């Protein structure tokens, strides 16, 4: 585990984003894929998909606007994909 506060916060953010994409944008539930390969094309594609859906600037990066929306309260129904 990271020892410094900034690194820990970053880790929490990554976890939040990963859960968000898994829950609402049908990202495959593969923790390693995201934490280790956050610049991989599937993850970037999912971030872009999320940004496009939510009306954000589509950058594929976790900019401050994107993170702000992710932290807002919301409905628990997935935005895309099947609801099961």
């Amino acid at each position, binding site marked *: 585990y990271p020892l410094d506060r900034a690194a820990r916060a970053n880790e929490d953010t990554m976890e939040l984003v990963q859960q968000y994409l898994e829950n*609402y944008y049908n990202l495959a539930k593969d923790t390693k894929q995201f934490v280790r390969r956050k610049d991989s094309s599937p993850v970037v594609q999912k971030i872009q998909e999320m940004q*496009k*859906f*939510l*009306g954000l600037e589509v950058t594929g990066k976790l900019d401050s606007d994107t993170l702000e*929306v992710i932290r*807002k*309260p*919301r*409905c*628990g*129904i997935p*935005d895309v994909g*099947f*609801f099961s």
Partner: protein
Amino acid sequence: TFPGEPKWKKTHLTYRIVNYTKDLPRDAVDSAIEKALTVWEEVTPLTFSRIYEGEADIMIIFAVREHGDFLPFDGPGKVLAHAYPPGSGFYGDAHFDDDEQWTKDTSGINLFLVAAHELGHSLGLQHSTEREALMYPVYDPRTDLTRFRLSQDDVDGIQFLYGSPPVSPNDPVVPTESVPPEPGTPAACDPALSFDAISTLRGEILFFKGRHFWRKSFRTFEPEFHLISSFWPSLPSRIDAAYEVTSKDTVFIFKGNQFWAIRGNEMQAGYPRGIHTLGLPSTVRKIDAAFSDKEKKKTYFFAEDKYWRFDEKTQSMEPGFPKQIVEDFPGVEPEVDAVFEVFGFYCFFSGSSQFEFDPNAKKVTHVLKSNSWLNC
């Protein structure tokens, strides 16, 4: 829409508030849910009525964490609620995370806004990408509740599934927004105006039409015009029949094979009930009109060209019925929309015509326009 475009195959749906949050008084929760349903009711042919026991189409619960559907809530913040698309069982149900601080205003999480969104899911809408839409997935506390309205995207979505609210030349208003019409709407004097149902209520007369009713008091000249939901939020619109039993200070409201009881502006518990519990045969699917004779303590139910008579003293349907309307009420149209009793006369309504029937003389004494009661 959800994959496969699930939607309700009927237009009259039931809902039940199974439990309550402790954040708000119960009537505030009731009111928020009713208002949220009205949002969708006003732009579709859908109508809703509340039940208090048994399985409703839309079951509404407040819960925390794991609550039996394998989609646990997550404590305060993040996920506020979820709901299921139309279908049987848990489908159509709406769940609210009771770890949120539910409020009437936007100081916490506004229950009306979230309920209106979730009930959109219950009716078959998926999330919208339009930020202004109610169905946008992210909660917006900046919404001005006093000026709330559906976005065009919300309206297009729900009308894709269910179509527009029925409109006829007689409809007093075409409600596309939650704005009640002004009293004295010109449609009251439309020569073709007909009524869905008419009942007395504590010395006044209520003329029901669509989602609205005129309230005619003998103390005032001008009739008042209201939304039914503004007095009785859980009553359906476009009702079939209504009558008052003055000895019980109760008005019974009929729609389809169900009826409700109201006392003043209070809905009575234990309703709706099935019309067949009154002793009507199962072949009767709906009542066209009804009234209760105060003197004789008999209630008359009219369906198609027949009528039945119910004894209020014995609380049973009288033998020897049904009878033909035209036989016992000569001069009245064979099928009626509405009827009520006033000054000892029975006033039958059929389309735009009104037949004043004298039960002692057993004949129609006057034929008037239906809207003559509205000063037209």
